[in-house]
């Protein structure tokens, strides 16, 4: 019994101290962002890595998600003759939910993991100490550009994801399942509101902040050689994904 309580207490304290350190890192990031000079070049390099290089995989995943979504809704809706609603459902699900979530998960897998691995390797090979010794703040140099780039570029990826998913749904719904094209498009336009799209984009900004902060945090506090880097990378991806899903529920239920 004592052991269980001990374990619970320790887990809780560990959780709190980790959350606390992450918050402190975020505060430091904000401080270092405000403090001049802000080197745009480093942000652009990260935007290319996080954004442009994730483009292909985001498009691929979104396209197929839109396609399967149309296929599934069609199967269900046909049972009560509501095929005309397929387009609207696909667009709503994508813009409100799947676009931001899928994009963030894909970016986590590609770039969040890379942030943890790269910064973690720099930590264990003393490169971060070397920055500090050369009077260069490592948070400003390494973390600020990654977080800013993520927050700027992930909403853009989300828009592309929304669009591709809708195109995928259209291909399946209209071209393969022969839903009337005019009905499909008109229903989508009628039911999808600008607020759905903006809400989704707001979510993507929050997810971007979370995944980049977690990736950088895990890397920054890496300990113990190659194994430590591996552990940090895994933890960054798992934690980011879990936090994205939890944040998604909270945002959806409280805000929209």
């Amino acid at each position, binding site marked *: 019994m004592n052991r269980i309580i001990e374990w619970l207490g320790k887990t809780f304290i560990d959780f709190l101290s980790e959350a606390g350190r992450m918050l402190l890192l975020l505060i430091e990031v904000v401080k270092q962002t405000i403090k001049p000079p802000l080197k745009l070049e480093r942000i652009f390099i990260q935007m290319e890595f996080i954004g442009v290089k994730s483009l292909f995989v985001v498009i691929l995943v979104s396209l197929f998600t839109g396609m399967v979504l149309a296929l599934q809704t069609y199967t269900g809706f046909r049972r009560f003759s509501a095929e005309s609603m397929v387009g609207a459902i696909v667009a709503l699900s994508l813009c409100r939910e799947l676009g931001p979530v899928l994009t963030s998960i894909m970016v986590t897998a590609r770039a969040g993991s890379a942030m943890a691995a790269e910064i973690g390797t720099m930590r264990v090979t003393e490169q971060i100490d070397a920055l*500090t010794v050369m009077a260069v703040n490592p948070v400003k140099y390494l973390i600020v550009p990654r977080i800013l780039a993520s927050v700027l570029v992930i909403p853009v990826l989300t828009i592309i994801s929304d669009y591709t998913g809708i195109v995928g749904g259209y291909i399946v719904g209209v071209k393969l399942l022969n839903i009337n094209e005019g009905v499909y498009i008109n229903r989508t336009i009628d039911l999808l509101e600008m607020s759905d799209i903006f809400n989704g984009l707001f979510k993507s900004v929050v997810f971007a902040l979370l995944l980049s902060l977690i990736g950088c945090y895990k890397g920054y506090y890496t300990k113990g050689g190659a194994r430590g880097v591996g552990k940090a990378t895994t933890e960054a991806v798992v934690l980011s994904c879990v936090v994205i899903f939890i944040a998604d529920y909270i945002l959806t239920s409280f805000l929209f």
Partner: protein
Amino acid sequence: MEDNIIKIRKLSKRFGTQEVLKELDLDIPKGQITVIIGRSGGGKSVLLKHIIGLLKPDSGEILIDGIDIAKEPEDKLNEVRKRFGMLFQEGALFDSMTIEENVAFPLLEHTNLSDKEIEERTKEVLAMVGLIGAEKKYPSEISGGMRKRAGLARAIIAKPDIILFDEPTSGLDPIMSAHIDNLIVDIQKRLNVTCIIISHDIQSTFRIAHKIAMLYDGKIIAEGTPDVMRTIDNPYLRQFIEGSSQGPIQVVDNE
């Protein structure tokens, strides 16, 4: 010793339950080479990291020209750090940059020199350490000895007053070790800088040091010029210098 650039007073540091430094006192003379010797895992690196403010002491003072860096805020500390150069054990070169970019990094970050001036200065220090021809290579493409020399070039490019060396000869063959030693002596003379070296390489220590200090059990147990150190009759020091497994220092108690 005339004039001490660094004075360490009653420096204590513990990690968890382990006391690494216990009220350590040490003076570093200006414009000389001081070598701190001691066992691996004995707190030498911890001491070095305190001198440049990578670690904060639990108590005690680290005075650099009279400024206690343990109490300075980050901004002031960075001003003090600009007077330092440091050579890390594995070089700690940025692996995403070429040797040339690595070496030029301190100038790019902290000066407004033109590209041409930076290039010239980079060439100059690379020549000093004998690395002309490797400018465009990445750290992973060169040998350990070259990485250390590149790290040394990066440490000296911004003309520091004090250079710290974390085991500059560890992991190198004897000839490369001797070469690095010569480089250190040469650079010290040429730039008239203060050098602090941590090492457990006895041969190299006696070759280059003006002052030697032995760290054991969190304290400096003996210090002096190499000639003095040869004559001090401290059983710990004797065992370390002679490299014997028999004596008061037990192999098991430390690791």
